[in-house]
């Protein structure tokens, strides 16, 4: 048998968001069945980088277990309610099994061979046989093959009342949705060979084989995801550079357009950043400016990683590489937090680890709509939010909302992360009517680590982590199913029952006269001096003062007296007054505990 490849696929379980691709007038006459199929078809073609217009010899095969049942009922309703003479001709014409094919072929201009097959739970397998035949006979060069079914109360009721016929009946609802595949004889990058497909479809879930195949073949991110991440990244970079601070707040625009509007000076850096985001390397830029989303998508398909890199005050980029498997593990392990959630409203950019997981991946995994909105602290949020929403925010934004007296509608879950949420802010959010507040403790390196819901509570480690605890402190965590191990950047005390209480950053800011300074930075600078073999910097003990202090091991042969003056001058040139260590101690080796850990001196 000839080899057939899945060049791309897409699976959807609701028709939400289809207005992104077609105007309202075009969509007005389409029923749910056609919209489900159309949305999956468009996403599949976008994932394959196939132009929506112009492919010459592309075939369209639709399989459906039951066809557009709702439309058939609409037509029967119109006969019953309005009489035979007034029955709806539109409902009739869209009640035929071929109706999804009709909409897709017209709107995507597919003029090749077309076929609809329908035999309940064997529909998809039959359609694959037809696709194989057409590709082998060169009836078509490519086949856009899709399966679509919609849930309908009549079918469910019949199944419920005929358990002897539907022996495997349970309380599950009929699985509705659409899965589309672009098949060809070409093994393009990111393609999968179409093998034998295990039959798992049932009368209740006639498309199960297609959904399972799509789940296995689909990349973690599809074209639309990459488009959103890229747009968010460009907006944030533009805002950070101050060239267009309002772009973050502006309406949704395509990445190419956002990029075009960037300051020329900023463009190379943004391309480097995007390359870094999708490949983990910022050394080579292969981004095609004209097709920025497609470039990112191609890179993602090749590497399968996302790099939530950070660039600190030193300007040194720190890579935070996450493979698709790591991101899937995290997403799956978080869904338990969000039972009953019906929609995710996110003001956090999806190019950020937190926004990516909660604003993009969790909604996909839970099959709920995601609504990205700009972080505008206005009182309108009460009108925007609705019962069942997960509102993905960060503390500074929440603080502004609370200051403005914003109240939440009933049934809203507020999510916060990126920085510690002060206890008084948590209380204020509850007082403002939030049904739940979930604070996520995490980092770009690790993703989400732990969560809590109430002020004063310790955090609970998320279920996909194993904890490494030393001396009552959480030192590192490692994933249960993927090879991600992260040293905890904070001092995190472990309380009874493995509850976690972060107590501040280990390596990072301490306050000197009200200003954040970074002992690590001073330490790195000192180590860079030619006279210094090793150095440690930390905050003085309260009885010593409120400044930094340094412990220095000089290189062999370097005199202490000469070094002292030179180092003072060196530091004075490079450091701010707040960063200057008040005292310098010299010694032969860095002070360590008996366990080999650094200690005070």
């Amino acid at each position: 048998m000839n080899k057939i490849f899945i060049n791309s696929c897409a699976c959807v379980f609701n028709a939400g968001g289809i207005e992104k691709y077609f105007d309202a007038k075009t969509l007005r006459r389409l029923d749910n069945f056609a919209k489900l199929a159309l949305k999956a078809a468009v996403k599949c073609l976008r994932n394959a980088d196939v132009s929506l217009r112009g492919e010459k010899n592309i075939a369209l095969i639709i399989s459906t277990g039951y066809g557009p049942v709702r439309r058939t009922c609409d037509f029967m309703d119109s006969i019953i309610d309005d009489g035979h003479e007034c029955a709806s001709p539109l409902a009739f014409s869209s009640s035929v099994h071929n109706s999804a094919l009709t909409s897709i072929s017209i709107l995507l201009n597919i003029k090749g061979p077309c076929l609809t097959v329908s035999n309940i739970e064997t529909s998809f397998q039959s359609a694959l046989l037809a696709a194989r035949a057409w590709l082998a006979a060169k009836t078509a060069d490519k086949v856009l093959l899709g399966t679509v079914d919609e849930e309908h109360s009549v079918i469910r009721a019949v199944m419920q009342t005929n358990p002897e016929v539907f022996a495997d009946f349970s309380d599950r609802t009929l699985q509705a949705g659409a899965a589309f595949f672009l098949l060809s004889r070409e093994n393009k990058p990111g393609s999968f060979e179409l093998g034998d497909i295990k039959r798992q479809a049932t009368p209740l879930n006639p498309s199960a084989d297609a959904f399972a195949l799509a789940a296995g073949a689909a990349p973690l991110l599809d074209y639309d995801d990459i488009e959103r991440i890229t747009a968010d990244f460009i907006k944030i970079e533009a805002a950070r550079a101050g060239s267009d601070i309002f772009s973050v707040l502006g309406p949704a625009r395509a990445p190419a357009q956002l990029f075009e509007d960037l300051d020329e000076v900023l463009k190379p850096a943004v391309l480097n950043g995007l390359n870094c985001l999708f490949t983990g390397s910022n050394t080579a830029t292969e981004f095609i400016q004209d097709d920025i989303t497609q470039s990112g998508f191609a890179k993602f398909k090749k590497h399968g990683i996302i790099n939530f890199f950070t660039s600190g005050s030193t300007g040194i980029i720190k890579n935070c590489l996450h493979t698709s498997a790591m991101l899937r593990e995290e997403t799956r392990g978080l869904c338990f937090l969000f039972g009953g959630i019906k929609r995710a409203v996110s003001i956090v950019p999806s190019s950020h680890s937190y926004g990516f997981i909660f604003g993009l991946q969790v909604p996909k995994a839970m099959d709920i709509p995601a609504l990205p909105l700009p972080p505008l602290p206005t009182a309108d949020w009460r009108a925007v939010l609705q019962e069942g929403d997960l509102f993905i925010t960060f503390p500074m934004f929440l603080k502004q909302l609370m200051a403005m007296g914003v109240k939440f509608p009933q049934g809203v879950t507020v999510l916060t992360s990126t920085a510690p949420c002060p206890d008084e802010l948590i209380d204020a959010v509850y007082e403002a009517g939030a049904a739940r507040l979930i604070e996520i403790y995490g980092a770009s390196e690790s993703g989400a680590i732990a969560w809590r819901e109430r002020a004063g509570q310790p955090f609970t480690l998320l279920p996909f982590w194993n904890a490494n605890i030393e001396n009552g402190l959480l030192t590192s965590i490692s994933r249960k199913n993927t090879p991600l191990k992260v040293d905890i950047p904070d001092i995190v005390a472990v309380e009874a029952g493995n509850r976690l209480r972060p107590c501040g950053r280990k390596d990072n800011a301490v306050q000197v006269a009200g200003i954040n300074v970074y002992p690590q930075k001073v330490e790195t600078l000192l180590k860079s001096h030619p006279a210094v073999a090793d150095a440690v910097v930390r905050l003085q003990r309260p009885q010593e003062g409120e400044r930094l202090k340094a412990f220095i091991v000089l290189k062999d042969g370097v005199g202490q007296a000469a070094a002292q003056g030179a180092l003072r001058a060196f530091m004075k040139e490079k450091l701010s007054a707040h960063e200057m260590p008040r005292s310098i101690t010299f010694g032969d080796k860095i002070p360590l505990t008996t366990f080999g850990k650094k200690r005070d001196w």
Partner: protein
Amino acid sequence: MKIPISGMGCVCALGADLGEIKKNLFAAAAEPVLPKDRLQSPYADSFPAFMASQKILKEKQKDESYGFLFLRKAADEALKTAGINPQDLQDARVGVIAGTTVNASFNCFDFYKAWRAGKTADHGPLLDYLNTPLSAALQKHYNLKGPQMTITTACASGTDAIGIAAQWIAQDMCDIVLAGAADELNLIPYTGFIRLMIASPKPCEPFAKDRGGINLGEGAGLFVMESPQFMKKRGAKAIGYMLGYGTCCDAYHPTAPDPSGAALKKAIENALSEAGLKAQDLAFINAHGTGTQDNDAAEAKVFNALLPGVPVMASKSHTGHTLGAAGAVEAALTLLCLNEGLIAKTARWGAADMALNLIPVLENTPVAAGKKAALSDSLAFGGCNSVIALAGGGIQV
């Protein structure tokens, strides 16, 4: 492509088997009648349909639909012509492809009406719909194992079934394929076509000036197609050949054909090309010829441009529009005519439509000498155009 057809069967308003059908086809003996006994509709007093005879309808078993009855009768006849006892097929790779519209649809009006009113209703028609896609039911009926597929590309389903069956054999997926289609008269399409204003209250007149639309029909057609090797092994003889298949989509309108006929033209070209045929090789084309203004105009335009001088047979004037079954019923009638060497006349034809510049065959006409093959085309809702090229059993290689 040259896939042997070793058996065929057909059921329609013309008759219960090919013998009866042949007699009535050339005599133009079938007439549409008002379906008052079959459909509870106010339209049943004014819009006629071509129905299977009571003799056939009475054979319906309790747990089967009329559509499946027609299909199994056509299959029984086809297997008989092919000299095959289904029990002898247990070791062969046997595919089953069936096209339909009604028999894959939730067109269970009486059940639905009762269910909506909260009453208990007879589940029979509904269970037919849920449990027995035609291809699976036929497979089960003969206890066959192999690939099966029910095609629902509206009115092109039957043509697609035969076209894909030929590919399955050509690609060595199957030794033998039962390929056909069936549909039964049903209130939903009956009302739907009338409400779309494309059904005629008079007997249909394909390609005529006063054509007023379709009459619905019902029935089934089925071919037994097999690989030359398998047929040789059985010592059987071909009664015809499947030579080419073409299918292209208009991407134009949900229910009306593209008036330019561009996709139909391409489908015909593809079928001819696969068959290695030119227009002058064709004995005739069995047109889709529904009798609607738009369909007949689109077909006439393409036939005039692509197949000048090729006689046009309009078999729906004998059978009505059997929807999903049409392609298979018409393929059977096409092969019947090829083997008889006679193109069937159009029944009850009125006056020519000068705008079409096309007059179908009006008298039973002998196939011209040297003509090897015929086309049968189908145009479906959704703009699907499918075409097959068939040759009679006496074809010289």
